[in-house]
């Protein structure tokens, strides 16, 4: 699971009012290089919740993202490289996503988060 996906996921449990962001716990992660596409990064940037990306990247040991980000930074190649790396090149293989309200853990195995809700959570 990449941090792009993590940035979009919100806890779905019945009654939870603010299930975003899910806290990231990572036991195993890898880096997989992919080509940088500036157009994609510029397009997706407005949709990214920056503080959630920042926190998740830190969990994976990547502290090169600025505390705050705004669209003017998208003209900087250096910023784009860091943004690209955090968003698309870090893959969580084993770990968990934790609901910020209930503490419920959604395990991640082989890179696949298990988001299935139990009967009483629907």
């Amino acid at each position, binding site marked *: 699971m990449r941090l792009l996906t993590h940035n979009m996921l919100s806890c779905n449990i019945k009654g939870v009012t603010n299930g975003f962001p899910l806290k990231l716990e990572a036991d195993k992660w890898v880096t997989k290089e992919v080509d940088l596409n500036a157009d994609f990064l510029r397009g*997706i940037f407005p949709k990214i919740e920056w503080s959630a990306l920042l926190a998740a990247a830190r969990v994976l040991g990547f502290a090169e993202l600025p505390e705050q980000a705004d669209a003017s930074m998208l003209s900087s190649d250096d910023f784009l490289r860091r943004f690209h790396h955090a968003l698309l090149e870090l893959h969580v293989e084993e770990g968990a996503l934790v609901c910020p309200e209930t503490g419920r853990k959604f395990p991640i195995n082989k890179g696949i988060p298990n988001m299935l809700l139990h009967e009483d959570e629907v």
Partner: protein
Amino acid sequence: MVFFIIILGPRISERALELLNLPNDGVPKLLLDIGCGSGLSGETLSENGHHWIGYDISQSMLDIAVEREVEGDVLLGDMGQGLGLRPGVVDGAISISAVQWLCYADKSSHEPRMRLKAFFGSLYRCLARGARAVLQLYAENMNQSEMIMTYAMRAGFSGGVVVDWPHSSKARKEYLVLTCGPASLQTALPKGKGEDGEMCSDEDDSDDDENQTVGVYERNRPRKKLKVNKKGKSKGKQWVLKKKEQMRRKGNDVPPDSKYTARKRKAYF
């Protein structure tokens, strides 16, 4: 059987992607593949340069997707529980042969209607304004089709059905094309494939015709459907008069013909 599916797969997902009507600007989009299975349809999205998030309820299928090193992220999830995505973040969604499963109650506590509502509600919310969802379906019967359409409309979608190869029982494919937002020029649907009469016979003979119905649905204004036969003509006055005569010969009680018989009524598309 598996071989057969692999051959058909890419063409169906290509068509679904085409129906998404994404802007042709060369910018990769973030898409959903609902019921992504082993990643066949997702590969089509990757080949076209897009990023995608896949959902499936089968761990074993997703394991295959991971083995095949698909480029999208895949999640183990039940679409009937809602997609759990933030509002307005997704540029489009496809689904190949999956959504009809929402119509079956497999667990006693999960009524199909609740699942359809959760699915379409969450899908609508996570799509950006003007984005589309294209759901290729194998609905078992009209009830299922209508139920699916009803819940899509209730969630706020406008849209309709595109049917490719309507007269071929083997090749026929139905795509539910939904747009997030009100109907507009952007939501106009293309013709289904095989609608140009290449397979039809010359005469509109009987009521055993496989009529093709084009239905366009809008959330607030249900439209009348105009029934057309294979040649694109509606069943006109001559046909009605002929039928009435047939019924009279059979001995049925048929009102007499008048100037009002089979008069043109206003038809809406």
